[in-house]
């Protein structure tokens, strides 16, 4: 694997190895000495054309934990606002020694374009591209699920038979897309839930079940519910009428939470709109994986950096 662009096409063995490596990285995070020498002498450039402090900090922590040098580029107040292109920016960073480009971009396909364009030789890691994919988020989500469900016996396992509901703005969600491919590869049963306005068209070929209200999905019995962040501006674009109606049909409310099995996990990629897509008390409950997801993010990104490093072998 030279680049990490999409979870689509990652085979089952590779997916499990990434999860196992994430576990080993998570162990390192528990030690007194939390640093590994693995990327000593390598430079990881975080290139963020779109603001995301939490993702940027997570990648920085991962790179530092592997002893890489880290440089960070954010478009705010930089030459990008003066019209410098993606191509010029990454070529400049590579000239300054970047071995890995971690790219966050508002355009779908930006990371794929970077990886295929021939502009640079560096490894490209997709840290979220438009409404396409966010593959490291899916990796940390799958890792969180696996470790919460299987504990000490998680290693080497897939998610066969695990039932996961993803609810929210599927149409615009890069988290949903990356999760669909990875979870399906790992053998999970995925159900997507959204009003028709927020569900992509023509997805009959996706390895998922599709329903349009959350109650319908929860009736089937589930192991985990992943709630997606809803952008409030969607209301103005007539995707749904208002926040109250969204919460009524698609929010993880306490009433819904009380009705599901007691050990059902509730996930959220953050940042949360408490009271809109998820009730605050659920986010803070023992069933919530929100804090795990954040801490596992560093380990998952360490695993990806480590896995790509091996590709440098001639």
């Amino acid at each position, binding site marked *: *694997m030279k680049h990490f662009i999409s979870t689509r096409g990652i085979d089952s063995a590779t997916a499990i*190895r990434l999860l*196992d*490596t994430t*576990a*080993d990285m998570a*162990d*390192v995070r528990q*030690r*007194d*000495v939390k*640093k*590994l*020498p*693995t990327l000593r002498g*390598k430079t990881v450039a975080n290139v963020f054309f779109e603001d995301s402090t939490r993702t940027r900090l997570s990648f920085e922590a991962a790179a530092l934990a*592997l002893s890489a040098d880290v440089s960070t580029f954010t478009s705010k107040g930089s030459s990008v606002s003066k019209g410098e292109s993606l191509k010029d920016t990454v070529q400049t960073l590579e000239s300054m020694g970047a071995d890995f480009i971690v790219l966050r971009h508002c355009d779908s396909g930006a990371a794929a374009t970077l990886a295929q364009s021939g502009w640079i030789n560096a490894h490209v890691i997709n840290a979220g591209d438009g409404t396409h994919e966010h593959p490291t988020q899916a990796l940390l989500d799958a890792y969180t699920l696996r470790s919460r469900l299987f504990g000490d016996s998680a*290693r080497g396992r897939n998610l066969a038979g695990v039932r996961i509901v993803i609810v929210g703005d599927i149409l615009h969600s890069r988290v949903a897309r990356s999760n669909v491919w990875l979870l399906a590869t790992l053998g999970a049963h995925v159900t997507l839930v959204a009003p028709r306005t927020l569900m992509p068209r023509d997805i009959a070929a996706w390895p998922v079940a599709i329903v349009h209200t959350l109650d319908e999905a929860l009736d089937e019995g589930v192991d985990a519910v992943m709630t997606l962040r809803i952008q409030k501006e969607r209301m103005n674009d007539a995707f749904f009428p208002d926040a109250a109606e969204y919460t009524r049909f698609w929010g993880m409310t306490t009433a819904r939470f009380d009705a599901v099995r007691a050990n059902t996990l509730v996930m959220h990629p953050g940042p949360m709109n408490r009271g809109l897509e998820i009730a605050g008390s659920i986010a803070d409950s023992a069933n919530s994986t929100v804090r795990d997801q954040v801490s596992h993010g560093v380990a998952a990104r360490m695993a990806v950096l*480590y*896995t790509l*490093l*091996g*590709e*440098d*072998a*001639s």
Partner: protein
Amino acid sequence: MASKVVLSSPDIERALKRIAHEIIEAQRGRHDLVFLGIPTRGVVLSERLAQLVNDIEPQHIDCGVLDVTMYRDDLRTKSTRATTPTTIPASGIDGKTVVLVDDVLYSGRTIRAALDAVTALGRPAAVRLAVLVDRGHRELPIRADFVGKNLPSSVDERVYVQLAETDGDEMVGIR
């Protein structure tokens, strides 16, 4: 190339017994041993050594697994290796005598990585090295404290170790 058996199953057993005695001798009664095996066969050997030491002189011995993959210096020239979990005793390794166990000592680079890995885990009183076979050709100033068999070899030759737990068969060969 012709293959030759260097150590048979009974040879291996004898070698490990001798090492166990040597370890006890070197310890002079201090009961703070931690055996850390380097995957894959080092783990098996460390468990066997711990058992043998305990048979000779009953005592509590901790065993663990030390994955050195992340500390290797050839990561960027070899394709990605799968990692394995590192496990150490709940009480840690601080102040204890850690015996690193591996099957074959060759360039010394794996042990160099292992020393870094141990350093990241804590501060042992001493670190010793036990290997089943030392085939020479060191590239670093590293030597083993306990050696099952010194096996002079050519760099073109391949020394291979098979153990019942991992390979079904049990022998050390060269070809």
